[in-house]
């Protein structure tokens, strides 16, 4: 926001009318024209818009506690709560150690997880690679390699793209599943972990949880496996969860 931008009362009211949509068609036309011509004016309008949003958002925020009081309180049984707190520090640690120890023995004596993994792991089929004017040529080029089972080549190509866009959820996801298909669990996990951190709306989220769960299962970390499989809505994940239950 610039210091020198004076906003008169009249201008403020005009901007307000623009924001709440009460301008006439002619006014709106003129206004839009001005927006396009005058950068500084545009910034002013944007700033006012942000301020108004800020006022609204903050007002709402301050009302939420009031809303909250209308919700009937969940009664958490006091003794249980106390117990959990107490347990937090010592007993849970002991219990966890026991579970780990027993779990470890059980795990090493029985290849059940390994079996589950091999039964349920199928490499992600990949995306359809259609010929066409796609600006994602490099991505789909690697996809062709992936589908042919040339995982190393696909990984190398995607890696180059991923270095430019480390946050790209789709890239992280396919790098993860490619490593997994390549039987390289340790390399797969970090990519899959990154892919599930994606913003809302990541289309492979369920699959990402599934493969991450599978990866942990293969690694022998049943707890983490369960946690991620639980989050996946896929049938495979549900089937594995069912098998994991004693």
């Amino acid at each position, binding site marked *: *926001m610039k210091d020198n931008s004076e906003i008169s009362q009249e201008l403020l009211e005009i901007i307000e009318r623009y924001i709440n949509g009460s301008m006439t068609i002619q006014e709106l036309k003129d206004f839009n024209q001005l927006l396009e011509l005058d950068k500084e004016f545009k910034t002013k309008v944007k700033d006012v818009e*942000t301020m108004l*949003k*800020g*006022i609204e958002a903050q007002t709402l925020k301050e009302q939420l506690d009031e809303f909250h009081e209308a919700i009937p309180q969940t009664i958490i049984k006091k003794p249980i709560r106390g117990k959990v707190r107490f347990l937090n520090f010592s007993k849970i640690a002991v219990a966890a150690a026991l579970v780990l120890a027993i779990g470890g023995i059980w795990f090493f004596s029985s290849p059940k997880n390994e079996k589950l993994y091999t039964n349920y792991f199928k490499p992600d089929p990949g995306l359809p690679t259609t010929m066409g004017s796609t600006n994602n040529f490099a991505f789909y080029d690697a996809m062709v390699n992936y589908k042919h089972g040339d995982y190393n080549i696909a990984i190398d190509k995607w890696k180059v793209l991923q270095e430019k866009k480390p946050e790209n959820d789709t890239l992280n996801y396919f790098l993860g599943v490619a490593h997994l298909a390549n039987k390289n669990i340790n390399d797969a996990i970090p990519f899959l972990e990154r892919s599930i951190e994606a913003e809302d709306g990541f289309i492979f989220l369920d699959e990402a949880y599934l493969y991450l769960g599978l990866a942990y299962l293969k690694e022998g970390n049943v707890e983490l496996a369960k946690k991620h499989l639980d989050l996946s809505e896929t049938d495979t994940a549900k089937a594995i969860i069912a098998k994991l239950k004693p």
Partner: protein
Amino acid sequence: MGKSINLLSQSELVCAIKSNESDILKHFYTTNYKKVEFLILKNSGSIEHAKDIYQEAFISVWTQIKNDKFIPKNDTALQGYLYQIAKNKWMDVLRSKSFRNSKSLDYETLTFIKDETNNDEDTDLKSNKLKLAMETFKNLGQPCKQLLSIFYFEKKSLKEIASELKIEENTARNKKYRCMEKLRAMVLVHNN
């Protein structure tokens, strides 16, 4: 608002939320909380965590709707969206190092975690500006705050405000302008 919220279609709900209809907002808030609370309590969170995460998610959904970033696709899209956002936020907390390492899950840890995640989330300038505007408005003097809230949030007319505050309409108009200028000046100070 004779209609109960359950009968409102998603687009009506979006509309009502956009115009900050208090009853609808409240109803939307109260009816979707329990599910989120259940999720968080089941996943090593406390009631305090649930409330905090839910409120954050609620504000995000509201902002998205305001910015026309959300278009409902089915009958419970908004409700589902709110839940999903809260869930993601909670997952972020669970995954964050500071949460995993902390033995006791007290309020301090949570605020700490929140600051951490906020930094990743809001790298884009726009939401930082919004945060700043919100923060500044929070610290604005009470009379100005009240006036601006009634006008911009409750969308009451200057006339209504004037009669509510027992002042002339023109006085209300001038006051509103002066308050906006004050807020703007405060934002500018923080910005430089």
